[in-house]
């Protein structure tokens, strides 16, 4: 399995900046190189779900 085509580098740079991260050029290169995997993960995750598909709740309301 080869490394998938990365996202556009400018997109990666903008997202890293938005996250407030200060990476060296070499570190940005590495995030950019593997960014295609992220896109593949999101493609597989998809967004085609029924409107009523709520996430699982992790709490129960109980009397104190």
């Amino acid at each position, binding site marked *: *399995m080869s*490394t998938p085509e990365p*996202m556009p580098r400018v997109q*990666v740079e903008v*997202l*890293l900046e*938005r*996250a*407030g*991260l*200060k*990476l060296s050029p070499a*570190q940005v290169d*590495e*995030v950019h*190189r*593997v*960014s295609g*995997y*992220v896109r*593949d*993960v*999101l493609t*597989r*995750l*998809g*967004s085609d*779900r029924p409107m009523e*598909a*709520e*996430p*699982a709740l*992790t*709490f*129960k309301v*109980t009397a104190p």
Partner: protein
Amino acid sequence: MNDATALPKVPTIAEASRLIEAKALSPVELTELCLKRIEAFDPKLNSFLLVTANLARKAAKKAEAEIAAGKRRGPLHGIPIGLKDIYSTKGIRTTAHSKVLAQHVPDKDAVVTAKLAKAGTVLLGKLATHEFAIGGPSFDTPWPPARNPWNTELSPGGSSSGSGAAIAAGLVLGATGSDTGGSIRNPSTFCAVAGMKPSYGLVSRTGILPLAFTLDHAGPMAWTVEDCAILLQAMAGHDKADPGSAKVKIPDFRAALRHDLKGVRVGVINRWHEGEHAVEPEMRQAVDAAVGTMRGLGAELRDLAMPDLADFAPAGRVIILTEAFAIHQKTLQSRYNDYGERFRSSVTLAALFSAADHMQALRARRQLIERTAAAMADIDVMVVAAAPGPATKMVGFDPDAAFKRPSLTMPFNLTGLPVMTVCCGFTGDGLPLGMQVIGHPFGDATAMGVAHAYERATVWRSRRPLLFAGAAMSAAR
């Protein structure tokens, strides 16, 4: 270094407990034995980040005095254990194996730390972990990574790496682990120990450094299922300070251990062993043989139609990375290079996700919980391999590797189901193999009961790594 092969072996928790109760073994003697074994073997294993020898001796003496005075607290009184170094310990350094927390000394115990202390355990020290419970082994953190006692050239698995290594080497009788994507089950498999990832909400996580709130579980690791049951009994219970904690009745886990499997319906997830991401042949053979043993014990076997393994991976990856990023964002902004390369490179990828991606992952999780529940409707437990194969070499960071195959363990973090992992054999090279026994939500006792029956019917618990102080270690009968 002296030849430590002459050192006595450590008993299991259940054996030691019986001997201590009968006053045939002193907690002080047992603690000294563990400390001698740590001194002899741990320089090659690196399973401990900190040995609290003085505190352990003091606790052992106190336990001995209490037991002599007729004040025995229960089966864990006087039993030496270790804590994964993400469990807060009041006044004792808790580092998450990271430079970021290298000087961190909590002013409060984690709830589980306190519960195990109250049960009378003797804390031997803090155990190695992958940095913040993700992304090891790392060679650029302040302490070296733990190594596998079956072969020190190999990884012990992780992230509860020190726990797995220390138990297999007989340096502790039991330990705590945490599991967000397989971090109890993976080292349990690679080190041939028993590891329990309880149902989500059964064990408090208050005071345990988090990785991803939605998927984090705390649980016990030990040499046998029975020992895990003893530890879990002390660890489980509702905690109002943990928003994920469940208010459920805690069963008697040890009483639920079984000697046969008559009438137990076992679903085998064969499809996860096959196809594009097939497990290695020796793992497949070991699980098939284990299923045969379970049939011999009376189990009714069914081939289970679970969702595709690859359906679980994207939701798990997005949740774990996004939540870890949120937890560490502020520190990543100011101290990026104080994290090891493996941690920071993994978690940084979350910056490429959107808020909608995280919500889609949480929605996918609910769908997978429902599909899994439907698949399990007519069975009592499921069985599947715990890893694709045996332990692999201790290598540096490969950013591509994590994406190349879906995890066999992550599905049960997403679904929150209880999983007991047990050794199910060895490769021709003498490396351990492991199997997951999965129960229904809060069916922890059932999963442990089935795993115990299997474990008792096999010879795997009689096999320990052969350790030589000052020499290369190897797998051995």
